[in-house]
């Protein structure tokens, strides 16, 4: 097909209009959201993660990222599964991606441990249902929690289609091995989850789980930057997301 000057200019004009319209709409959407917390990323940043499940599995039984996350965030360790609090953990592949498994899938893949955490959705149902705006989406895409505003109704837990949220059924403080004074502990009766280490991002650091991984299986970065490593991976490799058909727009992507 030949591109005439006229068609090119027309297409360029249309694209510019679309972009302008989109940014105006985004601006509106942002204005409708709660104000960004101090330390939020500069405008135009959209944080996201790519998890290489094969690289992650190389080191069998490795839990470095989980331990690092739970240590720096004062996540309590409850032995009772009912009262568990977890920000990042492992689940068998077939539980995370049941729609990807057939009767002929290799058993190694079916049982492969896959890291799961908050997907920091583009359209998070947890934010939609929260009656006090104690959970909200920042301009950089991070779904945040205000542990002082949360009333503990657990509507967000019911709304999350990924099981990413934990509730403090009991006082978490006695169950924290070593309390880190540089990060808040929580009280009983509030919900918590992964925050993409927003406190570390504000200092220019990578999330604790990303830093802890010896296999470099976790890649974190700005999805809006076409040259960012996350984007390179998403371009070069075929990735999947958890339940994209629900329209939540999860921003944790998986390499299988």
């Amino acid at each position, binding site marked *: 097909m030949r591109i005439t000057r006229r068609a090119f200019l027309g297409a360029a004009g249309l694209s510019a209009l679309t972009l302008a319209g989109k940014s105006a709409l985004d601006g509106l959407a942002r204005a409708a959201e709660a104000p960004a917390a101090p330390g939020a990323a500069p405008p135009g940043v959209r944080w996201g993660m790519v998890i290489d499940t094969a690289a992650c599995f190389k080191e069998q039984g490795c839990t470095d990222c989980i331990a690092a996350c739970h240590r720096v965030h004062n996540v309590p360790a409850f032995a009772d599964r*009912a009262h568990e609090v977890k920000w990042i953990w492992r689940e068998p592949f077939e539980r995370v991606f049941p729609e990807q498994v057939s009767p002929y899938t290799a058993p190694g893949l079916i049982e492969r441990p896959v890291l799961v955490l908050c997907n920091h959705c583009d359209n998070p149902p947890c934010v939609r249902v929260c009656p006090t705006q104690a959970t909200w989406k920042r301009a950089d895409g991070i779904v945040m929690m205000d542990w002082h505003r*949360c009333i503990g109704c657990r509507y967000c837990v*019911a709304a999350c*289609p990924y099981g990413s949220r934990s509730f*403090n*059924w*009991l*006082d978490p403080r006695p169950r924290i091995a070593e309390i880190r004074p540089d990060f808040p502990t929580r009280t*009983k009766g509030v919900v918590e989850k992964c925050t993409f280490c927003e406190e570390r991002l504000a200092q220019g650091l990578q999330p604790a789980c990303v830093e802890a991984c010896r296999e470099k299986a976790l890649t974190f970065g700005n999805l809006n930057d076409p040259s960012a490593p996350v984007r390179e991976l998403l371009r070069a490799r075929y990735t999947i997301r958890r339940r994209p058909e629900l329209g939540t727009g999860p921003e944790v992507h998986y390499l299988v």
Partner: protein
Amino acid sequence: MFMFEKAVVGSRRYWAWLGALGVVILVGVLFYLRQLEVGLGVTGLSRDVTWGLYIAQFTFLVGVAASAVMVVLPYYLHDYKAFGKITILGEFLAISAVAMCMLFIFVDMGQPMRVLNVLLYPTPRSMMFWDMLSLSGYLGLNVAITLVTLSAERKGVAPPAWIRPVILLSIPWAISIHTVTAFLYNGLPGRSFWLTALLAPRFLASAFACGPALLILLTMAMRRLTGFDPGRAATQKLGLIVTYAMIVNVFFILLELFTVFYSQIPEDMAHFRFLFVGLDGHAPLVPWMWTSLLLAAAALILLIPPRFRQDERLLIAASVMVFTSLWIDKGLGLIVGGFVPSPLGAVTRYVPTLPEMAITLSIWAVGLLMVTVFYKIALSVKADEEGLA
């Protein structure tokens, strides 16, 4: 205060009943203090089954509250005179049920002292915000209506004209409270058990069956205990309402079962399997759910042939069956069934604990206490009126 002088005079039996309820309430308060101290970990709830008995009772009782419309509508809109004596009882039942709903929400909060954050940061995109508005509005409407109509009755005058639009407003409002309650659940993308537009109609149908069934039982108990007679016409009409609503409710359940099991979508079937046959070896609710189904079927057998329904003893038996069947369906299965299996396919056991049951019973006792006191006031006013006539 509002005719409360009528509530503080009564027989020894009346006081013994109130005292017994008081004891149940007190036990619940003590357990609640423990829950407040230790956290919601004293309940059987867990990371996977995060709502249970409390929220299920809330849902069930919103239905009981909404069902007042089944006496209000015929009486005020269609001038159905036979409901003259029981309409106020339906409204008082609604007030008590809404109060119980609010208590059940309150005891389910992880941080109850922060509950007013819902007002401090009003969030219209959350269905809980609308539920709060519709429930408190409905409470306000019914308090105003009962207050005005009963005072007028005591004075032997017609109620003021301005109350009529308020009463008419309470009719769609009653529908709204149960619709919004269904919206709490059926707008969640990952919970396929609730993700059905049929949820609100199902809620309303079951509400309009079990609320009037409860009203039949309450008025029959009062006739036995106080000599108050609701009138055969009223009782029979209530029985007819229960019959129609229960038929519609069972029809809706069958529609749901057809859609889920004919389409064979595994995720949708899993929740029903857990409830009716068990999943991964977990079948805690199976006997309950089958009891609910069998009671529903038996109730329909007693309700549909007029010959059976017109026999008062059979009508009472059918009312007990309808109430029990729907309490199991909504007060146990509906909430737990939505959480099992979890988004990650986990089948988690949920059994309410002793503190949880004691707190639940205690809130039911508060409701019964309110019904008792309100009905005492209403009947005393009616008795005075008849004494004067």
